[in-house]
């Protein structure tokens, strides 16, 4: 069975982080907790565009849209694997 979008997202975060993560959950705040650095937000957006197949309108971004894996799934990937 192929990797789900959510699993791809988790794998991306774990690959990119420079922090020692004991327990990354889908609710862990990716930037506030320093899991990802602000400079990596562009990489994250490009990756989400790739796995969701949708272009993201940067000007239309709302606060918290990339807060954690749950919000990313809800905002950008809902119609991929999950509702």
């Amino acid at each position, binding site marked *: 069975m192929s990797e789900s979008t959510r699993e791809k997202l988790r794998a991306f975060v774990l690959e990119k982080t420079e922090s020692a993560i004991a327990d990354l959950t889908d609710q862990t705040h990716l*930037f*506030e907790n320093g899991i990802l650095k*602000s*400079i990596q937000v562009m990489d994250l*957006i490009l990756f989400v565009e790739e796995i969701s197949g949708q272009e993201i309108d*940067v000007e239309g971004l*709302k606060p*918290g*849209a990339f*807060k954690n894996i749950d919000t990313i799934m809800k905002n950008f990937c809902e119609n991929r694997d999950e509702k």
Partner: protein
Amino acid sequence: MITGVSEHAPGLWAIHGSLLELDHQLDAIFLSWARELNAPEYRFPQFLAVQHLDRLQYFSSFPHLVTFAVSLDRDEEELKRFAKEHEVSADGSLELPMAPRVTHVVTPAACYHAYVEFEGQEFNEPKIITTRGTCCRREDYYVGLERQWIFSMREIVCIGTSEEVQTFLAEAQEKVDRFVRELGLNVTWEGATDPFFNPKNNPKYIFQKLDPVKQELVFDGRLAIASTNDHRSYFGDAFQLTRDGQTLSSGCIAFGMERWLSAFVHSFGEDPESWPAFKVSDV
């Protein structure tokens, strides 16, 4: 033109008389808040090294704002030639005899110097300081007191944990709120982003949209006279500001001095007699 303000060249204004006195009085208020926060005052140089600004990706984020400090190479023959042959053109420009390498920028924001000052230091408690700087930002157009090439900025800066910085910013914002209420200024706090160059391709701009870190105190719905900025660990990372091995956050509250003068004039008129009286002890 407002009494007490004179234009010397596009972007460059002088202030004198009652307006300058008002500037000093307002600054005394901001300084008193710094004292309440046990923040010592620093005076920093007018220039910043390009190597320090480059660590902040300043030249990719704000190339449109930067003003470089340029000096001639110390070559005796070239200096003699320049002293003799230099010529200011009709358009007001002066051609330099060579293209000197640039090492410094005229300060674009007062607080940057604080991170340079404390580079590599470890802080066991919040470090709060204040400074006032003459700042330089190139703009597309200029308006006296409101959008100047050279302007004055008073800042109070905090280096600490994320919680400590947020507590500092909330406390500072409270002081400002109490003061503007007493003055009767028509202002509101609004979320804002920094004026990035080519913002859509700048991760820092995108990050500011996703995680608002800047609030501006906007006068009459059009003019930001102060701002609070939560830098997260941005400067802590760039200048190795730490506690127990962990990178610290930083934040600042900044006051655009000339813009406060403009807010006063637009609210209460040009006659100082009509300005609301305030003293440090009243606040």
